[in-house]
């Protein structure tokens, strides 16, 4: 009878009874505090159900609201009663009705017997722990909190603001250094009676009565004053979510809890029958005195907090919808937008796909349809190539495509002939790698050999569109990695740009390119541009081409020297 248990019970009395029987079976006396909110009938039948157990007592009842002093007062009363009634108790374990011993109680007793002087209580100063809710850490000890956070949230907030405004500060009693930690502790008889019999207790109690959530700080602070040996951790496995609410264990956590080696876990869902059937585990000589190791449990719950607070970038769904225009990275990962390259080279897309292993799409936003890499009409995720459907929500067409293909780099061709509504989105997206060969849209016109007046009109239209797009790409709000060259610059030395694109898409520097695509036949191109100028349409985005510019694929001037170098 070395360990005694204080159990705070609020709801699910049947489960509390079960837990109490486990403790008693393991040889531990239990003092139960039942929340005064539990009705007299229920209370009477609960007491009655436990009347066969001699080492179970009930303590004076308090009305317990979350985060109030009553929880501490209830604990103090029960602790006094436990220490007085069971003189052989050496450690006192604070548990709740939703706590369940996982390992045999005798193992816990043996563990504590081997550490007779140690107090297990999580206790750290407010400066060192960031896990407080509502932004109140230090202030929970220096302001007053007479209003319930649960029931009168607005008054609570208002009163806090008011105190902050007039710079109100409570004096912390001398010698008290506020500490906080899990409310589930296990203290030695010496420490606990020292706390309860401290001559300054009335002053301390008066102070903590108005501290916020004193059940997480009263014993944690007092133990620091009276303990000789503190292990700052809780023997109760208890995880909290980002709002400070306890995570709950269900039947499907069975294997995880078995592996954890923890002595006690909370909160157990009251209908998790498999857990209540399986725990506490029968005596197991193998486990014996193993240390608890809750790291796998920690991982699962910290992942949950992460998912709730940060989520999966690039995902838009019924329960995650960050405003696209406000985010920095609106997509799941890096992708390449290529403008004017497919116009300049023969078979550019196939070449690039071959070089990089990426999915290289054609003009995804073309007016006729979305040209997916495999030219299919329905692409990964069920994306349709239908232009009306695509343009109905052009931004999400892209975020969807990137989400569906996450893990594979995506590249697509873009240009002034395409739907322009995604310009701002990709310009502001840190994941976008945009390469523009400005004025390259003129090459298809040059090669189409339409009537010249049509060409002139179309060229003017495309130039206007691209000019507007370039303004967006050059705006101070643009966060994408943008590279813009005129067609004239690009044609003079295309290799550097191609190398950069390939490196970027592979995610690492690649060996020098040995195989390059053929440039389209540009014979007569200089004269064509001059003719446009003569007609009054100045293709200024294209850059300066000499009138006699006349490149054929075979005598590309820069190709061979580059390779030799």
């Amino acid at each position: 009878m070395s360990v005694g248990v204080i159990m705070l019970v609020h709801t699910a009395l049947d489960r509390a009874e079960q837990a109490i029987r486990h403790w008693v079976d393991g040889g531990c006396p239990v003092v139960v505090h039942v929340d005064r909110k539990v009705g007299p009938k229920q209370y009477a039948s609960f007491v009655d159900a436990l009347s066969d157990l001699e080492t179970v007592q009930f303590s004076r009842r308090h009305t317990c609201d979350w985060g109030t002093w009553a929880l501490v007062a209830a604990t103090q009363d029960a602790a006094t009663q436990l220490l007085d009634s069971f003189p052989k108790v050496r450690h006192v374990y604070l548990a709740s009705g939703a706590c369940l011993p996982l390992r045999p109680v005798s193992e816990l007793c043996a563990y504590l017997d081997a550490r007779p002087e140690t107090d297990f209580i999580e206790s750290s100063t407010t400066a060192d722990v960031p896990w407080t809710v509502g932004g109140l850490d230090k202030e929970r000890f220096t302001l007053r909190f007479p209003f319930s956070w649960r029931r009168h949230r607005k008054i609570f907030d208002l009163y806090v603001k008011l105190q902050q405004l007039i710079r109100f500060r409570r004096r912390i009693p001398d010698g008290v250094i506020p500490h906080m930690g899990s409310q589930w502790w296990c203290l030695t008889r010496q420490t606990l009676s020292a706390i309860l019999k401290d001559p300054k207790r009335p002053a301390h109690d008066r102070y903590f009565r108005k501290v916020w959530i004193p059940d997480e700080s009263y014993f944690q602070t007092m133990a620091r004053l009276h303990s000789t040996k503190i292990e700052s951790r809780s023997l109760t496995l208890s995880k909290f979510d980002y709002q400070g609410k306890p995570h709950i264990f269900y039947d499907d956590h069975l294997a995880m809890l078995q592996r954890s080696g923890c002595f006690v876990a909370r909160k157990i869902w009251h209908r998790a029958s498999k857990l209540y059937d399986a725990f506490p585990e029968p005596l197991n000589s193998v486990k014996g005195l193993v240390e608890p190791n809750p790291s796998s449990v920690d991982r699962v719950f910290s992942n949950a907090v992460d998912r709730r607070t940060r989520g999966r970038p690039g995902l838009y769904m019924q329960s995650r919808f960050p405003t696209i225009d406000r985010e920095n990275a609106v997509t799941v990962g890096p992708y390449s937008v290529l403008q004017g390259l497919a116009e300049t080279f023969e078979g550019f897309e196939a070449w690039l796909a071959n070089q990089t292993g990426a999915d290289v799409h054609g003009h995804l936003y073309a007016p006729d349809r979305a040209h997916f890499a495999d030219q299919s009409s329905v692409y990964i995720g069920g994306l349709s190539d239908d232009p009306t459907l695509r343009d109905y929500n052009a931004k999400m067409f892209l975020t969807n495509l990137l989400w569906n293909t996450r893990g594979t780099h995506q590249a697509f061709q873009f240009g002034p002939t395409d739907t322009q509504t995604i310009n701002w989105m990709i310009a502001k997206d840190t994941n976008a790698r945009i390469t523009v060969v400005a004025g390259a849209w003129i090459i298809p016109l040059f090669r189409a050999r339409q009537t010249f007046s049509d060409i002139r009109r179309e060229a003017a239209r495309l130039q206007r569109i691209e000019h507007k797009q370039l303004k967006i790409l050059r705006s101070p709000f643009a966060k994408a990695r943008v590279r813009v060259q005129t067609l004239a610059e690009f044609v003079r030395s295309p290799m550097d740009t191609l190398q950069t694109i390939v490196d970027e898409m592979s995610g690492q520097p690649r060996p020098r390119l040995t195989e390059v695509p053929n440039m389209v036949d540009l014979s007569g191109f200089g004269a064509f541009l001059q003719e446009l100028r003569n007609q009054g349409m100045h293709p200024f985005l294209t850059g300066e081409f000499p009138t006699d510019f006349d490149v054929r694929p075979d005598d590309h001037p820069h190709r061979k020297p580059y390779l030799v170098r």
Partner: protein
Amino acid sequence: MLRLQRKRWKFRAFRKRRELSVVQNRTTTIKPGDILLFCTFRNEDIRLPYFFEYYRNLGVDHFLMVDNGGSDGGSAFAAEQPDVSLWSTEAGYGNSRFGMDWLTYLQWRYAHGHWALTVDVDEFFVYPFCDTRPLAALGDWLDASDVRSFGTIMLDMYPKGPVSQAVYERGMDPLQIADWFDTGNYTISRNKRMRNLWIQGGPRARAFFADNPEKAPALNKVPFVKWSRRYTYVSSTHMILPRGLNLVYDQQGGEKTSGVLLHAKFLNTFGDRAKEEASRGEHYGGADEYRRYADIPEQEADLWSKWSAQYLNWRQLEGLGLMSKGNWA
């Protein structure tokens, strides 16, 4: 304005209670904390047995059903069930806000303080851990987190091959034959007034509404709500008032916990239903949607594509980003 609209819907629902006549009322067996299911149906006898089975397994304690002029024996079958309370009406579906007026009245009367699930007979609710944790676990957890409503996307399920050849028989799990879905072609915009998300897309948008995507059916639903007398659904379960209940999504980048309604509509029963509903004209937008389906020759109505995914379980959906565990672990 919204308050007025809410009051109006509630008043309307109260007036329309007269259209309902009791077939079997077992609501006195409802205990505090019970999970209730609300549903309107018409000629769905073939689907009812599995529907009851599915939701009993999830832990629904009581079904409150409205039979809208059915003539196929479904009503008698439902009335026999020990956990069903049944009302019937011959009034028009369209005139009752597509059944919502009747359900709003029943919810007002019976659902206050309960978690209420409102679904159609062809909708199957899937939520994180639904294979190991009953609905009560979800309800308790949402209660503890001070969350009053739970959002889903409605996922249209379809067979591989022509819809007309997926032959459904009474009692069968429809998700055995309509087990394919589109994984990533849903588009979302925000309704500023009601604050809900408007989700469209999926196979219906792709196959039937490509020329007019705005008309494609809404897929956002808020089917699971800790009911209060003050609440009322606005259009089907797509929106609910007060509008704070529509905020089932996070706007800062985090993921709230959410689920999926698997919509097993596209079975061989669908062709006849489309023809009937198109002529009856009682559905949303004058059953324009059904008219579009009825126009498509049956042998061509094949929604499957090579990028369709075959349904396995909720973990698959959560991995694909079609639902989220959020903070529930």
